[in-house]
């Protein structure tokens, strides 16, 4: 551990717990609390990764969760951010995006080709000839990229939690901590979140050689941790801002969705690099990165370094470096006038030379191109951004700390709808107009002085408290006079380039100039052409410089260039986190266990679990055979299906009949008690959305069924319209409260009769009739509904008795061979009967006239939903008609599928909506949309199969049972 320094107050490592791990096959020592990068750096390892495009060696840059050139793979995990991820015993790490290891990466030759690979080269190069594109795509994908996706990654449940608070404070730096304490004192319930594993922000590392701010931090932390109103969450970031102050907090173990009454954004700033040639070499890093290394992890960033700065922060960095014995060769200040006097004196008192009005013209790499050998310092013209090579001086060093300014971490503010303005005093975008309930504090608010930041936090807390109804005295914060913390243009032009602006994507200054020349001179266009800000760090260290460069190219003020859109998530978030624990509610009928026990092959039908068909234990039936056998049982004897999933709604009240007349297309006012009618529902556009059966149980009471998947929708629409129409109607949704089963087939009556206490003879209960009685001792609602068979009994009983009645009926039917049938057989049976299914045989455009449902529409009523549209539609010619068809007798070719097209003279005329072979009929039958001209019985049309074969079909009448007699179409 060559780079480790003596124990420091407040360091984040635990020296009592040493550990070892591997990096690229090399054994490395570290301590608990180290990040991967800090442990590697302490061990003298400088090359932590290869760049995305040119495969240049890279080391530390930000050391703040945005070092995207230092991503690691550890077993099944990849793209691990080494700068923040804690190292652990036994890790076996390797850098991503290398071929042959990070040091000997075979793809490093691409750097030499860089003059031929400017931004956008792939847009213009590889698209011709088209046949070669897959070849090039493969090469490019292999050469450029991040970690390899592990398709065998285990599914690890990451819970998504909810949390609530009065104030959510994003950022636990000086202003955030101060805001939390002040808000809690106001009696508010506070959640304080910070992405670092410890709270404190810059109070934990920016000391300028003097750790007095640590006392400030300790005092604040004591207040925070001792206050029961404050919940401090560290190691988690606020991923985005959503309406009504919903902020997802992303931690290692999952996402917490915080619903706050107010939000204070105290998220701070990102340090921005100055741009000069070879500013990307391992050993060149941001000033704040050196401070974090030194003061959090007790690691020397280098032995002999220089500081290049365009603000006062560089001087603070130099003092921190000097305090731990690093030889600071010089502070190179790009500003003509340098720093304020007292700060400059502190630096010079340490024996550090200060070069004002100077820049690093270029960094000279060591012979292996993987380290710093020296820097070339030149006079710098701030107005032209040009260095004067004639004044070049070479300074030998092994590292460079660079500070040029800051960009606000304002993503959440943007997402909340904050109007920002560019403040020239701080050379930074700051909030100008905040949305209601959102407040900003600290550096993100343009306040940099520590005392002012502490006060700004209190101000924000008071304003948040007042927003919630308190009436505390407002606090005014005055920014003390100070040099701008950010430089307006910290760029050094160089004829040979390699002065990187975006380290994620290897974008240099010349790339922006070329993009602008090609016309991509709007910030959004430039972003997409150059890909600046589109890498994993999402422009946190590049967007501001890109804006400044574009502003200078276009000779516009920065605020005229604007910023790109800040979308959630603020930081790349694992898909496993976003998916989280999945909630997929399923509904189970009362007879579910019976289905499972008797070979039911269960499938999801909307939210319901239903048996598609049954393969009883010991049987080797194929799915198709099972379905045909079940259907045959219904045709020849008796079968029973679990129909509990049907929507079941009771409609009560003096206006019940009048309500149904308005709601459905048919007439119900004159319906007899004990009778049923088809209830077809349209939407306002006249499109069929549901059909069911309405039974009149009493003068003021109906029992209405809906399609299984529509129960909730129909019930909701009913509720809405009752309110809208002001009718005296009460609804009860019994969908889940009633089990239902249909006993169907020629022997069904004999089975039902054995268990029922009412007359269900043809006279006692004719088709369409309804009665109440007891089945197997259970109060039941019984109706004759001929959906799957001419003779069928639909029996509804309370859910809790469903299994009992089902089992009793199965037992009663045993001697006549009763068979349970599933949804697949049900579809075949209703097809044989010629009954279409709404939403299966119809679509989101089908009206009743197209689906031979005119008889269900009482156009002479005063009103029903969709009537106005139908009045318009009925005056126009139809475009399509739903017909029943049969394929030719003995057809053995490729069976058309649902959605295969009906083609006539090369034009699309319709499509197949249902098709199936019927063993009972020994024919292939179906539903199809065809042109109206093709819809007459006996008309022929052609269906094109998946392979392109044309299959002739004949329109025929339904039910299809006449085919048994005619043996033809």
């Amino acid at each position, binding site marked *: 551990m060559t780079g480790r320094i003596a124990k420091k107050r407040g360091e984040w490592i635990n020296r009592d717990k040493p550990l070892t791990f591997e990096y690229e096959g090399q054994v490395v020592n570290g301590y608990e609390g180290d990040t991967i990068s800090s442990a590697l750096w302490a061990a003298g390892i400088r090359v932590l990764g290869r760049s995305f495009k040119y495969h240049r060696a890279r080391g530390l840059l930000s050391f703040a969760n945005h070092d995207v050139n230092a991503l690691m793979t550890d077993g099944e995990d990849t793209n691990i951010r080494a700068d923040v991820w804690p190292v652990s015993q036994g890790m076996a790490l390797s850098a991503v995006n290398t071929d042959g290891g990070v040091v000997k990466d075979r793809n490093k030759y691409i750097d030499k080709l860089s003059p031929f690979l400017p931004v956008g080269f792939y847009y213009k190069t590889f698209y011709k000839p088209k046949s070669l594109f897959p070849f090039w795509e493969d090469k490019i994908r292999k050469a450029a990229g991040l970690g390899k996706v592990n398709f065998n990654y285990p599914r690890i449940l990451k819970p998504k939690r909810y949390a609530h608070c009065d104030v959510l404070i994003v950022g636990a730096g000086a202003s955030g901590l101060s805001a939390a304490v002040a808000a809690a004192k106001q009696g508010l319930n506070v959640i304080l979140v910070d992405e670092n594993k410890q709270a404190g922000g810059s109070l934990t590392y920016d000391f300028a050689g003097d750790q007095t701010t640590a006392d400030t931090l300790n005092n604040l932390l004591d207040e925070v941790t001792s206050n029961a109103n404050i919940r401090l969450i560290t190691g988690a970031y606020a991923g985005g801002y959503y309406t009504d102050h919903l902020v997802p907090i992303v931690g290692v173990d999952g996402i917490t969705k915080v619903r706050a009454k107010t939000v204070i954004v105290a998220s701070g700033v990102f340090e921005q690099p100055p741009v000069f040639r070879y500013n990307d070499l391992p050993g060149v890093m941001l000033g704040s990165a050196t401070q974090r290394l030194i003061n959090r992890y007790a690691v020397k960033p280098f032995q002999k370094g220089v500081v290049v700065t365009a603000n006062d922060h560089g001087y603070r960095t130099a003092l921190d470096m000097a305090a731990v014995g690093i030889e600071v060769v010089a502070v190179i200040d790009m500003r003509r006038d340098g720093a304020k006097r007292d700060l400059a004196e502190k630096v010079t008192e340490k024996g550090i030379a200060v070069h004002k009005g100077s820049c690093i013209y270029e960094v000279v790499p060591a012979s292996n191109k993987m380290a710093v050998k020296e820097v070339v310092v030149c006079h710098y013209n701030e107005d032209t951004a040009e260095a004067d090579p004639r004044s070049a001086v070479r300074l030998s060093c092994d590292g460079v700390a660079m500070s040029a300014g800051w960009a606000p971490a304002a993503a959440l503010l943007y997402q909340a709808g904050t109007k920002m303005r560019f403040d020239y005093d701080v050379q930074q975008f700051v909030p100008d107009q905040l949305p209601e309930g959102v407040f900003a504090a600290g550096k993100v608010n343009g306040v940099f002085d520590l005392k002012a930041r502490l006060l700004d936090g209190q101000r924000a807390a008071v304003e948040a408290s007042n927003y919630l109804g308190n009436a505390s005295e407002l606090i005014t914060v005055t920014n003390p006079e100070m040099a701008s913390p950010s430089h307006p243009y910290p760029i050094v032009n160089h004829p040979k380039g390699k002065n990187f602006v975006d380290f994620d994507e290897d974008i240099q200054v010349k790339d922006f100039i070329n993009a602008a020349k090609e016309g991509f001179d709007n910030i959004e266009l430039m972003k997409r052409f150059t890909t600046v800000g589109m890498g994993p760090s999402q422009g946190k260290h590049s967007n501001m410089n890109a804006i400044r460069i574009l502003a200078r190219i276009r000779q516009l003020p920065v605020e005229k260039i604007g910023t790109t859109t800040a979308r959630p998530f603020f930081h790349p978030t694992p898909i496993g986190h976003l998916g989280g624990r999945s909630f997929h509610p399923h509904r*189970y009928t009362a007879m579910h266990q019976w289905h499972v026990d008797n070979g039911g092959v269960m499938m999801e039908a909307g939210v319901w679990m239903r048996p598609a068909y049954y393969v009883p234990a010991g049987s080797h039936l194929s799915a198709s055979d099972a379905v045909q056998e079940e259907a045959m049982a219904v045709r020849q004897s008796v079968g029973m299906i679990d129909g509990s999933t049907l929507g079941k709604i009771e409609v009560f009240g003096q206006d019940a009949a009048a309500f149904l007349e308005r709601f459905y297309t048919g007439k119900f006012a004159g319906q007899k008690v004990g009778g049923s009618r088809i209830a077809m529902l349209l939407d306002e556009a006249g499109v069929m959305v549901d059909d069911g059966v309405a039974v009149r149980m009493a003068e003021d009471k109906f029992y209405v069924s809906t399609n299984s998947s529509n129960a909730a929708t129909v019930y909701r629409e009913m509720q809405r319209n009752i309110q809208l129409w002001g009718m005296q109607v009460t609804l009860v949704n019994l969908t889940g409260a009633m089990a239902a089963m249909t006993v169907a087939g020629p022997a069904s009556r004999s089975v039902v009769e054995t268990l029922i206490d009412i007359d269900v003879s043809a006279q006692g209960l004719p088709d369409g009739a309804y009665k109440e009685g007891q089945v197997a001792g259970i109060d039941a609602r019984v109706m004759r509904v001929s959906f799957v068979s001419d003779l069928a009994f639909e029996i509804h009983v309370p859910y809790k008795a469903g299994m009992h009645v089902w089992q009793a009926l199965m037992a009663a039917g045993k001697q006549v061979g009763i068979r349970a049938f599933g949804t697949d057989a049900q579809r075949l049976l209703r097809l044989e009967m010629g009954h279409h299914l709404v939403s299966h045989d119809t679509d989101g455009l089908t009206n009743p006239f197209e689906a031979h449902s005119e008889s269900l529409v009482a156009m002479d009523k005063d009103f029903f939903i969709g009537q106005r549209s139908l009045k318009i539609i009925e005056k126009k010619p139809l475009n399509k008609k739903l017909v029943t068809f049969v394929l030719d007798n003995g057809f053995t070719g490729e069976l058309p599928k649902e959605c295969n097209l009906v083609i006539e003279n090369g034009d699309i005329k319709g499509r197949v909506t249902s098709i199936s072979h019927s063993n009972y009929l020994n024919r292939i039958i179906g539903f199809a949309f065809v042109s109206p001209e093709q819809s007459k019985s006996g008309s022929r049309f052609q269906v094109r199969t998946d392979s392109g074969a044309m299959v002739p079909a004949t329109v025929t009448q339904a039910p299809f049972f006449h085919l048994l007699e005619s043996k033809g179409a």
Partner: protein
Amino acid sequence: MQDVVLKSPVAFAQASKKPVNGQVNGMEIALSFADASVEAAHSETLGICDVSNLSRFGVKGPHAADWLTASNITLPAGTNRWTKLDSGSLVMRLGNTEFLLEDQPENGLCQTLSEANVNESGVHKVIRNDAAFIVSGELTPALFSEVCAIDLNGDALEDNRLVMTVIAGVSATMLKQELNGQSVYRIWCDGTYGPYMWKTLLGIIEELGGGPVGFNFYYKIN
């Protein structure tokens, strides 16, 4: 129907836990899942109990409140509130015109009301099929933070309020009551969602160190 033993809508989801089942109120229910001490620990940490077998009665309609009052039922103070009768039965007002009553095992109020004739318009009995649960323990906030978006640390359930919310994606009614000296949450949802709800909640409960609790833990049925 008297001779028919019915099953809790949650029954098949509980089978893998091999509970000791028994009949209460004409319904087969899980009486216990483990030793009393284990269930007591679950109840203290985080436990879930299926009480779907408790008798319930639903009534709805513009005159439902008057009808209940005439039947000597004390009604909650307002909508989305509940009250407990001297007999222990809960009376929940689910909306302006809708009520749900639930008995203790020994009570017969719901049965009496179910059998009562309704001779006036504007009063409609509602057939119920609820999966009903008791959730208890010190880790209930952790459980609900995963499955429910409302703030249960606030006053949402205080002062005999009940909430109709979504739990694990399912519409549910929830309240907090004292039961055997313990503060517990009550949850009702459509019985067809019962197995899903049980499995989902129990899955999280077990992750958090809790477990299932049998009916006998709360209602000492012999």
